[in-house]
């Protein structure tokens, strides 16, 4: 990630746009990747013998799920990086926050696509399969995490609080991943890893994976820069507020 300097002179920070050449190229790549995903996912890849065209949901469902994992892990790692004295910087906190937001978004997509798929292949939107439930919990946990980020206090307080929550929350990811092993599942077992997918399906899945990965990185970069600017704005607002506050004295 390209770290943004902690925003002391707010104005300059705000004047700077969130795009750089790199992110523009990246954005183009994202569009391209999505186009490929549509091409392969909807047209080139074959129907599944059991699930017919329904299987095509896979190309969104699984990548978003995995990217959500990644996002949450990134949140955890950068939270740790923040807590670790020598690397302490609000940039880590912002990355953590941004990543969590994207993760929640992706996990949401997983849930929606999943339940749609469930309607198709199981005939129901939702069931108390272990993976589905644990996924739901993971989703809520990170909503809670975002709520904690909004508790207020100084930036440092926000960072410290949420970092701890993040470190505790990330432990749920393996819980979701292995849930299919631990509890009687209805949900798919590991099928990709065991190579149960036909070549073209697998390829389409990887296209999707790459496309969403690019999207994730792109979103992350922009989001955390926007956050940096928000923080900068706070500080800038503080300068104005300080002037007013001092004026209180004069008028007395």
């Amino acid at each position, binding site marked *: 990630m390209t770290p943004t300097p902690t925003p002391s002179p707010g104005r300059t920070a705000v004047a700077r746009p969130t795009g750089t050449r790199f992110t523009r190229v990246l954005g183009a790549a994202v569009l391209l990747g999505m186009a490929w995903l549509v091409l392969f996912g909807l047209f080139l890849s074959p129907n599944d013998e059991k699930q017919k065209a329904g299987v095509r949901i896979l190309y969104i469902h699984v990548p978003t799920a995995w990217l959500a994992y990644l996002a949450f892990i990134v949140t955890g790692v950068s939270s740790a990086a923040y807590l670790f004295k020598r690397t302490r910087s609000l940039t880590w906190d912002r990355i953590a926050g941004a990543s969590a937001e994207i993760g929640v978004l992706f996990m949401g997509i997983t849930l929606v696509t999943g*339940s749609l798929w469930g309607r198709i292949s199981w005939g*129901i*939107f*939702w*069931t*108390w399969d272990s993976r589905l*439930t644990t996924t*739901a*919990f993971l989703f*809520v946990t990170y*909503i809670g995490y975002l*709520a904690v980020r909004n508790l207020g206090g100084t930036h440092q307080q926000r960072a410290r609080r949420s970092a701890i929550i993040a470190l505790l929350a990330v432990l749920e990811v393996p819980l979701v991943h292995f849930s299919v092993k631990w509890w009687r599942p209805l949900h798919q077992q590991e099928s990709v890893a065991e190579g149960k997918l036909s070549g073209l399906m697998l390829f389409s899945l990887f296209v999707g994976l790459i496309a969403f990965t690019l999207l994730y990185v792109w979103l992350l970069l922009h989001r955390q820069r926007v956050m940096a600017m928000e923080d900068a704005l706070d500080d800038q607002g503080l300068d104005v507020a300080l002037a007013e506050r001092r004026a209180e004295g004069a008028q007395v």
Partner: protein
Amino acid sequence: MSTWRIARLIAAKDLRIELRSRIVTNQVLPFAALVMVMFAFALDNDAVLTRVAPGLVWLATMFSMLVLVQRAFAVESADGALDALQVAGVRPGGIFLGKSLALAIELAVLEIVLLIAAVVLYQADVAGSGVLLLVATFVAATTGLAFVGTLYGGLAAGAKGRETLLPLLMLPVVAPVLIGATRATEAAFGTNGATSSEGWPWVGLLVLFAALFGLGGTLAFGSLIDE
């Protein structure tokens, strides 16, 4: 100043506080949804679930309601505002109706979400004819719950250890609502082959209940809240 104007005044105040603090939308709703998920998980067994879905909707409503009522009176007794209200000569009946109104509105929002959750999560679905019944049930039950909640919330507000006294006081009283609403909802959902016609008597019970506590509260609230 008429009791009714005071009620409006207080309901408006409570709702404004809610708007400012966003508690219901940001926290109670997720909580309620979560409660449903918890139930579902604790009894993970679809056969069971769909059968008991109506009951769970109401259980979840009730637990979330406990939170709401607590909040509603925490706001009053935090800084001795309840005293001030009394001295302000605000008619107890007015306070009661006002707070009930606000509570009912918040509850309604809550239940709609829970209902949707139930339909999605537990694959409960409403038989066409049942819709009317369902609406009737919800209106009656909500009113009743709001009245009971306010009545006992007010009673507990004075006492110390409020947060724990409240559930104790409320749950047993609410049991009839729970049963009535559950049965009526089952009828509406057509669970266990119940037909909506079977539901209406229950709605009757709910209405009776609501009327009873509405009246009781309006009359008795004064002597309940003043220490």
